Every structure is written in structure tokens, then in C-alpha cells.
């Protein structure tokens, strides 16, 4: 079944002419029609466009001139990335009918690589959330247990890959929004180093934290997609002008002699024992493969969450100021005057979590509070970065849990603070701007996926991927698929 294949396997079929891009696109579109009503990963399916793109890919394969490994591969994109001519909602009412007249840089890169775009994926509104329950329209289900959340904010992107509703997807990660859903959905999710991938066309949530990254069925797929989207972009002044290595080249290099750090502060009281067991077992597996491990200390871990929940809302309150009904998006009619229009539009257009964060952020930046909140949080951020710098003087990668627990039931986490605690292991990595991946690390007794996080030095995605691949090859968790019937 074509939809069960990974990107690299599918690419192999195309090359050997055993299948065509159009067949693959149709297979995925059929599966979406059959299964997505249950999963609800997709916000918008772009079937006609996808088939047209697939036909063009067919022609390239027939003439013997395919563009590369992603040519003809059916992908889907989190609805926070702008796609020209395709509605981009950020799962918010305020952008419900917004159709961007331009593509995000990463979208352009994928299209230039010949990828086929199946559609846009559901998310927490404006990327704020850890369960996709904050989508203004509907919640995506976890393919492993339809009563549970897929994680967030890139819930749709993770679920789509887990349910074989796309060969790979693009998500975004600001405080864990790729890695946490990857963990909950049992797939690979990579957050690159800040500045590795262009943010142009990524609807901003927290400018100094947001990054675009791939979800893949396996590590090699994640490497392939990262290869296509990484690189300096003159339209993004925060993207770094550093060469892009061949991420697939070293993938099978193994971990002999590699130094792994286990952060003491990540093994806290609230950590689910099954998650802890899986992570410790993973370390053993890596040691068996030739790596060395040692304990490292990241003493400011507990303050990372607090710092993040000042910095991210502060930047978000600023980035979301533009949604006012003037030039695009929702405008609530019947307003008395301009001020009324602003209030009504933002009142109706934003959900509760977005409002909460906008208020928090406005507060943190206001005169009199700036130094105590935003200013203070930026200094704590420096300390978090220094923690990692010091640890990386002694180790090459850090291995840790991705989340404190596994996928929870929908509606279970109502208290915002409880929800925020999901991200306690992922947030410090965003604050430090480092690359991190979550890969399948096992399953609980009840069959729910457990994520394993691997964190690397800045711009050292290659090592992170190599370690991930070594573990994956030794364990084969990624081969397990959720049971789904139409």
C-alpha cells in the first residue's frame, strides 16, 4: 500500500517506475476521504492542486528528469504557514477566510523540489497550545486512541503522519509544538536550530522562538525534508547564513564513542514512570551501540517554563496586534466606530487561550512591568543557554524525555497552567535555540507512544539525526502503526 511507505521508500518506487506520483497522490487523497473524518487532521484538502502537481511530477519521471528525492512526494503543511491561493487560517476565526497572495519560503522550497501538497493541517489557534484543543474549529484526534489528543500545537501534522494521511508533514515548534505531538503520536518530529530554516511566511507567534520543522515516519524522512527546507533566506533577517550539510550522508554513522548527557533535572517527580523507564532503556540501548553516557546538570530547567511564559506571550501580543479587521481577516460588522470595531473583531476572532496570552504579554511589556517580567525573563534565558553550553563542553548530545507523560484524554487538562507543564522538557531547547528531535521511544502498557528527545549543539542536526537513526535501527518502534479502519 503506497500510503504505508516512507518518503524514501516511495521515492524508490518512483525511481524504479513501480509507481507514479499520481498514484501516490490519489492513494493519499482516498485515504484522507476515508479516514480523516475520524482523525480530523486536515483543515483544507487541496485535491485538484495536488493532482495537478502530481501530474507534472509524473511527466518529469517519465522524461527521466526528476527534481530530487522529494519529487512527487505527497506532503501536507500546518495551517500556520502561508500558501499562495490556499486559505491559511492558523485555526483561528480571525483568519478563517484569509487567502495569502504569497507562499512561505519553506513552501516555495518544497514546491521547487517537486513536492505535492495535499492540504493544510489543523493546529492550536495561532500555535498556542499543547493539544490542538485550542483550534477554533475542531480538535484533531490521536490516531492511537481517538479519545485522546494528538498533542499540539502541530497536532494535525503529527496525526497525519501517524495515520498515513501524508508521507511527511511540516509543523512548527515554539515551545515544543513539533516534538510533543511527535511523542504523543509515535513519530519523528524535528525542531531545527533557530535560524536554520526561514520563518518568512510563518505566521508569527513568538519571533525569537518559532521554527519550522519536519514530521516523518522515520528519521531518514525527517532528514530528507529538513534538507529541502533548510538554508539562509534574505527575506528573514534571523535566518543564519551557514552552509547546509548533507543530512543523509552521516545518518548511518553509528554512535561509537559518542558522549551522551542525561540531564538530572529532567527526571522530576511528575515524570510518568513508563516514560522514565523508556528513556532509561533508550540510554542503555545507545550504550550497547557504543556510546558513553554521563549525567549533566541543567540547573535552570525549572525556570525555563516561567521565562517562556513571559517571553512567548510578550512577543505574541505584539505579533497579533495586526489582527484588527482593517486589511484582511475577520471584521465584525455593525461596529459603532473604529475602537468598537477593533474590540468586537478581536473579541470574536480570538479564542480564550489566545486572549489569555495576549493579555499576559501586554502586561509583561507594559511600562513599569517590563524590567520585572520581560527584561528578567530574557536574563534567565541567558542562564538557560549557558547551562546547555556548559553541558555541551562534556557531551555531544543530550538524551531526555520529550514530555512528562503520554497523550491525555480530550478535555482532561482544563487548567491552563496544567497544560503549560506539558512543555517543561521541550521549552528550554527553544530558549537556547538548539536543535531537538523527538523519536518513538516505546509504548506504554496500554499501547500509547512514548517519545525520546535528543538535543544537540547549534547547527549540529547531523549528529542529532545520526543518534536518532542508530536508536531507531536498533529498536524499530517506528514500524508500528495505529490500527485504523475507515
Amino acid at each position: 500500500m503506497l500510503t504505508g511507505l516512507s518518503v524514501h521508500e516511495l521515492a524508490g518506487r518512483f525511481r524504479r517506475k513501480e509507481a507514479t506520483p499520481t498514484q501516490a497522490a490519489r492513494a493519499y487523497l482516498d485515504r484522507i476521504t476515508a479516514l480523516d473524518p475520524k482523525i480530523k487532521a486536515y483543515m483544507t484538502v487541496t485535491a485538484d492542486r495536488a493532482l495537478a502537481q502530481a501530474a507534472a511530477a509524473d511527466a518529469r519521471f517519465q522524461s527521466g528528469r526528476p527534481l530530487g528525492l522529494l519529487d512527487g512526494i505527497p506532503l501536507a503543511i500546518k495551517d500556520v504557514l502561508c500558501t499562495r491561493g490556499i486559505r491559511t487560517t492558523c485555526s483561528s476565526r480571525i483568519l478563517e477566510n484569509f487567502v495569502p497572495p504569497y507562499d512561505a519560503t519553506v513552501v516555495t522550497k518544497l514546491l521547487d523540489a517537486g513536492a505535492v501538497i495535499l492540504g493544510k493541517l489543523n493546529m492550536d489557534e495561532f500555535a498556542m497550545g499543547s493539544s490542538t484543543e485550542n483550534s477554533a474549529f475542531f480538535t484533531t484526534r490521536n490516531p492511537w486512541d481517538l479519545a485522546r489528543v494528538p498533542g499540539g500545537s502541530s497536532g494535525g501534522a503529527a496525526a497525519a503522519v501517524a495515520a498515513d494521511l501524508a508521507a511527511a508533514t511540516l509543523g512548527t515548534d515554539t515551545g515544543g509544538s513539533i516534538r510533543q505531538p511527535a511523542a504523543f503520536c509515535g513519530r519523528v518530529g524535528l525542531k531545527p536550530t533557530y535560524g536554520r530554516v526561514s520563518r518568512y511566511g510563518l505566521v508569527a507567534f513568538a519571533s525569537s522562538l518559532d521554527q519550522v520543522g519536519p514530521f516523518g515516519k522515520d528519521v531518514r524522512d525527517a532528514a530528507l525534508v529538513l534538507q529541502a527546507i533548510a538554508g539562509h533566506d534574505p527575506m528573514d533577517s534571523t535566518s543564519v547564513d551557514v552552509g547546509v550539510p548533507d543530512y543523509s550522508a552521516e545518518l548511518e554513522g553509528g554512535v561509537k564513542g559518542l558522549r551522551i548527557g542525561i540531564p538530572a533535572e529532567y527526571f522530576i517527580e511528575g515524570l510518568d514512570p513508563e516514560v522514565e523507564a523508556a528513556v532509561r532503556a533508550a540510554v542503555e540501548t545507545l550504550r550497547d551501540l557504543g556510546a558513553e553516557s554521563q549525567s549533566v546538570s541543567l540547573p535552570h530547567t525549572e525556570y525555563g517554563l516561567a521565562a517562556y511564559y513571559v517571553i512567548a506571550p510578550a512577543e505574541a501580543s505584539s505579533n497579533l496586534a495586526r489582527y484588527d479587521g482593517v486589511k484582511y481577516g475577520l471584521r465584525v460588522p455593525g461596529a459603532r466606530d473604529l475602537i468598537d470595531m477593533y474590540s468586537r473583531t478581536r473579541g470574536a476572532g480570538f479564542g480564550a487561550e489566545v486572549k489569555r496570552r495576549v493579555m499576559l504579554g501586554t502586561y509583561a511589556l507594559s511600562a513599569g512591568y517590563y524590567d520585572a517580567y520581560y527584561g528578567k525573563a530574557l536574563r534567565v534565558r541567558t542562564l538557560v543557554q549557558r547551562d546547555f553550553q556548559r553541558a555541551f563542553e562534556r557531551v555531544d548530545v543530550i538524551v531526555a524525555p520529550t514530555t512528562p507523560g503520554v497523550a491525555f484524554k480530550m478535555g482532561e487538562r482544563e487548567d491552563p497552567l496544567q497544560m503549560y507543564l506539558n512543555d517543561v522538557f521541550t521549552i528550554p531547547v527553544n530558549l537556547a535555540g538548539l536543535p531537538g528531535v523527538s523519536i518513538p521511544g516505546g509504548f506504554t502498557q496500554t499501547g500509547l507512544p512514548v517519545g525520546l528527545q535528543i538535543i544537540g549543539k547549534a547547527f549540529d542536526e547531523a549528529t542529532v539525526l545520526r543518534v536518532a537513526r542508530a536508536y531507531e535501527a536498533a529498536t524499530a518502534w517506528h514500524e508500528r502503526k495505529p490500527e485504523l479502519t475507515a
Partner: protein
Amino acid sequence: MTQDYETVIGLEVHAQLRTRTKMFCGCSTAFGAPPNTQTCPVCQGMPGTLPVINRRAIEYGIKTALALQCSVNADNRFARKHYYYPDMPKNYQISQYEEPLAEHGRLEVEVGGVSRAIGIQRLHLEEDVGKLVHEGSLETAPSSQVDFNRAGVPLMEIVSLPDMRTPEEAAAYLRSLRAIVVYLGVCDGNMEEGSLRCDANISLRPRGAVEYGTKVEIKNMNSFRNVQHALEYEITRQARALETGERIVQETRLWDPDKGRTVSMRSKEFAHDYRYFPEPDLPPLDVEPAWIERVGATLPELPAARRARFMEAYGLGAYDADLLTGSRALGDYFEATAQACGKPKVAANWVLNELLRELAGDDERALAACPIPPANLADLITLIEDGTISGRIAKDVFEKMYRSGEDARAIVDREGLTQVADAGELSAVVDQVLAQHPKVVEDWKGGKKAARGFLVGQVMKATAGKASPAVVNSLLDEKLPKV
């Protein structure tokens, strides 16, 4: 009992920079395009877009800072300034706050022959906002309409210290500042079109007091005259209020040029807390000394220095020097002409009278379109000075030069306009004229001075204007008494 008040004035000037493109995107800054045709997702603040700094705008900022004797801050960065208004695409403006491009400068201002240095607190860069348009009048229009062409155009904000003490001084400061930015080529300086804007802060305090009074911000002054009149009005208004024991409200007032008064503006912005924070989408700037030096090397001679030099080197009066240094291009033209012919005062005369009369303006564009290059004008002047042609003929030749672009000598030679100075030749003509106009001669003898002018005119007519006035006059001196 009238208290003696001292006026304290500070000016905040916004200059639109003459870059080709906007501050943070590649849209054109050309004036006058149809609405919303010079925009893109970035300057429209569409979701997902990001700013990228225009290098030339920074350069122009550095250049201006140097001309104003500011110290350039090597480390400076952009910050977001938040407020809601429909002309603000992102509802924040990317500006500079705690770390501006330059600070601590000064500008010499002359009023009534007395020169004073006005302090400049800071100079920073920011993006301009869009334009609100109304059907009919601001009061009666049911809605506003927005054109974002101007949104994102680079602005340089120059804030003075509250050092000015009179409206004349404020106007003079503005004039000097304008002259500098136009000389540097960084701004058009067009207040009517809005490429140079001025807001004032004005307060009164009892003379001798150290603390400042409550300051009032004045906006909507779109010419030097309006700046002066608005400030004069404010002084009167505030003094009157203070005298009757009224408290001055710290507010923003708009100058109404038709009614000749300032009017309180209802608050336009909804939060006076701008919630500044460093722009996370833009890495900071580190302006290296080498860059500053390179820019410094491109500074032209500034208006004040040039004016002083013209007066000294060429013996020009203040009035003429002022006019000739009104634009850099005009000064360049004058100087080239003066140096080529060696007669600066004559050159000044020709440039300020004949040339300016023909030109469409005195700016770069007008001078560039001038059909008479400085060398040709210098040539013409030389022809007058060496007696080849008379002053009056020269005016005709000038006009012909302007129409045709030909040089002076070619026209003089072709049309035989060389001055006739031969006494013998002219003697015959004078005799003839005297013979033809006996009545006029009688009039002159009777004391009518104007009669002589008529006779000179007749000689000129007879010689098609080519007679040397000096020779004609000396001949008449000789012959008239003898008739």
C-alpha cells in the same frame, strides 16, 4: 500685572529619506503613485512577513548624524512601538528607542545676525505609516480610507533639545536643518508634500525659573511660516492662560492655518504606553568606525560653511551668499562660473538675475536641465569684461544661448554683435543723431536731463545696440555743449 515669561521650544523633525526603496522592503518610495500600488505583504503587515533593513537608509542616517555633529552609536537597534491606528499596518511601528543611531549633536542657528548652537538630543530611524483619506471633510466623512503606499518609507527623526527661545529661532533652526538634509541629498525637504515634517513642543516659564513649564505639543505646521505663526499663537494663548491662573494642559494641539489658532486634538492613540521592546525580527546594528569614516568622506561642504566661504573668498554680501547657497547645485554652478571667469561678483549677478529668471527652480533637477553650462556663462562674462560686447547686448546673447545651447562666441560672431568702440565710426553716428533731433538738443540745453538719455538711445538704435556706451557718452560729453 504681567509676569515676564520665557519661552522654551523644542522641535521634532521627521525627514523622509530619499532612498529608492522602503525601510524594510523593496517597494518603491516614488511619490504620487496611485493608491496601494506600491505595497507588498511586508509593508502591508500581512501575516508571516518579516522586515529587512535598507542599508542605504542607515547610511543616510549616519551621514546626517555626522553633519549635525552627533556621536554615532556603534551599537544601536530597532524596537517596536505599539499603538492601534488604521494607518499602522502592524499596529506597531518599527522605530528606535533605547539605542538610537546617534545622539548629542548641535546645529548653529542665526537670527538677526546672532548665532546660537541648538542642541540635538537624538537622531533615529523608523518606518512611516500609511495615509488616511477622507471623503469631504474630516468632521463630516462617515469613514476613513487608507492608502498604504507611504507605509514603510524610511523616516529619520531628529529631536532637538528644548534650546530654542523664540519662534524666529525655531523657524531658523528648521530652515538650517532643511538646508542640511537637502544638501546631503538624503531628503527632498518638501514640507508641502510631507517629506519634511515638524512638530513642536512649547512651554512657558517665569523668567529665571529653572524648572520647565507644562509643555504642549503642536502638530500640523506644514511650512516655516506656519511653524512661526503657530508658535507665536501658542505663546499668546499660554501666557493669557497662565495670567488668569489657568493650568496648562499637557496635550497635543493642531495648528489651523485658516483660523490662525491651535485646537486641542482629542486623543488619537489608545494607549500612551507604547510597550517598547527590541525588535526580535532584526539583529542589532554594529556601526564600525570604518563605515562611519567612509560615510564621513562623502560629506559635502555644508550650507553654513559654504555661505561663509563665499562671503570671504568672493567678497559677496550676506544676502547674495544666502541665495547662492540655497541649493547645493546652484552654489556649485555659481562657483564653477566664478572660477572660470575670475569675476565672482559679476557671476553672482548673472546667476541670481538672468539665470534664475529662466530656470524652473534652483534645485538639482533644474540646474541639470540648464542649457548653459557654467563654462559658457563664464565665457559670456569674459566677453563683457574685455569689451567685446556691451552689457545690454550680452543680455540678448544670454537669451539666445539659453534657447539654443550655443556658446557665446559663436552667437556673437555669427550675428556680428561685437561692440563698436571706434570713436571715429561712432563720431559720425553721433553727429547724425544730433543733427536729426535739434529739438531734443534744445531740451537738454534747457536743463532736461532725460533728453540726453534719449539721444544715447538713438545712437544705440542706429548701431543696433552695438555702440559702446562708454564711448558714446564721452562723445556726447564732447559734442553736445558745442551744438
